[in-house]
């Protein structure tokens, strides 16, 4: 069990005691893909609930989705798509060992994540002002439930859970940035950059499904 406190040569992969570094890279990647599968299943239940109720309450859901501002949703889609692009650039930068470019591109992705959250907050506060928000008087009014069924309930669950994932993804990228600033990555070792970017792509992908479902076809 070799001690890890020795000074690691910049850009060299860590040497775990129980496998070689190539195996470690492939193992980490497989692990990440499995984790992404669990994330998709986490959302799957909510998508299933949405599909079921959309089918049952077609009119109410249609009516309710018109209360959302599709322009804000579209803007957020663009922001996330761009951030996914910069995340992919960061992986390329890591493969050629350009730590500065990792910092720059992941930095942009994190900033985009922040913009996304701010726009989301604007949307939420707009709803709150109109009373379509848990805890308001309108929310507990039976007539409100009759006219929109549980559309807004599902809306907040889906977007709230997604926003949580945005925050997690941003934290992961910030952690990778701190490592990249110390020139930790090289063409021989860039696993965290790749996995972080993979996670961010998932966050983006889920939003790409959420946007049309919630805002457009409603």
């Amino acid at each position, binding site marked *: 069990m070799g001690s890890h406190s020795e000074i690691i040569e910049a850009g060299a992969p860590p040497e775990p005691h129980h*496998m070689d570094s190539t195996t470690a890279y492939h193992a980490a990647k497989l692990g990440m893909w*499995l984790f992404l599968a669990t994330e998709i299943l986490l959302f799957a239940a909510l998508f299933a*609930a949405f599909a079921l109720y959309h089918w049952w309450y077609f009119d109410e859901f249609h009516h309710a989705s018109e209360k959302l501002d599709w322009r804000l949703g579209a803007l957020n889609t663009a922001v996330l798509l761009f951030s996914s692009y910069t995340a992919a650039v960061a992986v390329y930068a890591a493969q050629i060992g350009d730590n500065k470019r990792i910092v720059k591109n992941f930095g942009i992705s994190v900033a985009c994540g922040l913009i996304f959250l701010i726009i989301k907050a604007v949307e939420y506060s707009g709803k709150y002002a109109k009373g379509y928000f848990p805890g308001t008087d309108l929310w507990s009014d039976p007539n409100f439930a009759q006219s929109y*069924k549980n559309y807004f309930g599902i809306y907040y669950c889906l977007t709230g859970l997604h926003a949580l994932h945005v925050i997690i993804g941003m934290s992961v990228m910030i952690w990778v940035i701190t490592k990249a600033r110390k020139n930790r990555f090289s063409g021989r070792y860039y696993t965290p950059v790749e996995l972080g970017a993979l996670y961010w792509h998932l966050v983006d992908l889920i939003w790409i499904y959420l946007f049309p479902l919630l805002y457009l076809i409603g």
Partner: protein
Amino acid sequence: MGGHQVVPDANGHLKENNYLNCDKSIKSWLLTLDHKRIAILYLVSILSFFFVGGISALIMRSHLAMPQAQVISPDLYNALFTLHGVLMIFLFIVPGIPATMGNFLLPLMIGAKDVAFPRLNLFSYYIYVVGALIGFVAIINPVWLIDYLQGMAQGVWNPLDTGWTFYTPYSTSTGAGEGWGVILMTFAAFVLGFSSILTGLNFIVTIHKLRAPGMNWMRLPVLVWGLYATSVIQTLATPVVGITLILLIVERVLGIGIFDPAKGGDPVLYQHFFWFYSHPVVYIMVLPAFGVVGEIIPVMSRKPIFGYKAVVFASIGIAAVAFIVWAHHMFTSGMSAFSAAIFSALTFGVAVPTAVKVFNWVSTMYKGSIRFDSAMLYAMAFVFLFMIAGTTGVYLAVLGVDIYYHDTYFVVAHFHYTIQGGAVIGLIAALHFWFPKMFGKFYNEGWAKFSFWLLFFGFNLTFLPQFVLGMEGMPRRYYDYLPEFSSMHQLSTVGAFFNGLGYTLALLNLTTSAIWGKRLAPSNPYNSLGLEWQCPSPPPHDNFITPPVVTSGSYDYGYPIEERSKA
């Protein structure tokens, strides 16, 4: 600590520098990255919860010894079966064999030094501990506890009373624990699910990436296949129940209405989501136990496992079908006759591979040289108990008959045969079988056999009468019952105490032998061909002294059939 000398004696017993004693500090145990030590940590934890869950069952059985008994209040009874279910399912048997025996054996069986992500492994354990703590707080009702600590708790103690299934709208409306009970408990189950996901993920990657040279897929021991199938279910099904339980919390806190009929929600949808996980979870419990039996019988009979490929594909088949049969828990929920018929038919898709496995185990014993160590007794008991579990499962798969048995004691008896008779007996069998490897010592065989017979007798006395009760129409989760059910309830109560005593003695025997036992075990006491027996007992930190290269299967016992004439 690279300087440790690993020198086993001639029998393969490793007295110094094995994984148990290479570093004795508390910290080295609590922060260990060694899969074997993590296995021991899990073992101690889950057996403690098993004990508490067992006590709660005994209190319930004592109460049920007489009709119109007032031993405990109805609310306490409801809290006890909730406690029993939650502890036994989420804290004991779901981690059960995978987190203990799986953690210990998986790297040994495939010739690896550790699981793929040792730190993640330790992290899973601590998530499990955190989940368990939250669960305990939830069950004992925090508001009441705070009052109690301030010396002002009289009045009503209303602990969590939803049952382990948390069905809405009961769970979203019950006042138990001032509402916090359900919120905390479902959150605890979510956290525990996370631990389960990470363990499964770790195992899958380990099996894919860390097999020793020559250990190809068709040479993997059947226990590894069982763990693999289990891990797939753990990884794919658990997130669904995770989000469902979170929705339950959000439902209670924000009133979002996904399961609330007043807002257009559907309580039956909750059941679909819940069983999408909670049916496959049965296979999380029992597939590793199948694997354990598949290991014990060949070694104890000195025969290759009969139909290795059939056994392996049966495991994979069960895991696959497990995902599409959940709604057979809901035949009375008002689903359409068409979907009920589909789910009934799919359910039989599980019955066939299970039957195939049983035939293969029994055939393995044919023309063997069979020794009756207590591990073998447990394995044979498993086959018997699982036959009963399986055949009574047929009643519940047959649509017209299930309607009658749904939510009666018949179901209670059936799943206890499956889970206790299957998964728990499997775990106990595994503990006895691999005990010499884990601790480098032998347990007292006489006590082991005595406690086996005690718990086997007690188990059947507890649950056979419950089949009769179910046939007579006795519903489950009943605090009180009509006098005509008395005699069967009394038999069951008596049996429960024998059963509990049997487990206590068996585990005491193992514990005392592990700590104070004098008879040292060699590396391979059963002359097994399994890779895990080829390293010293107890194994050193990195398992194998020289990295193994596998050249033959794990079950090549006996002389080849062409050479029969020479024998």
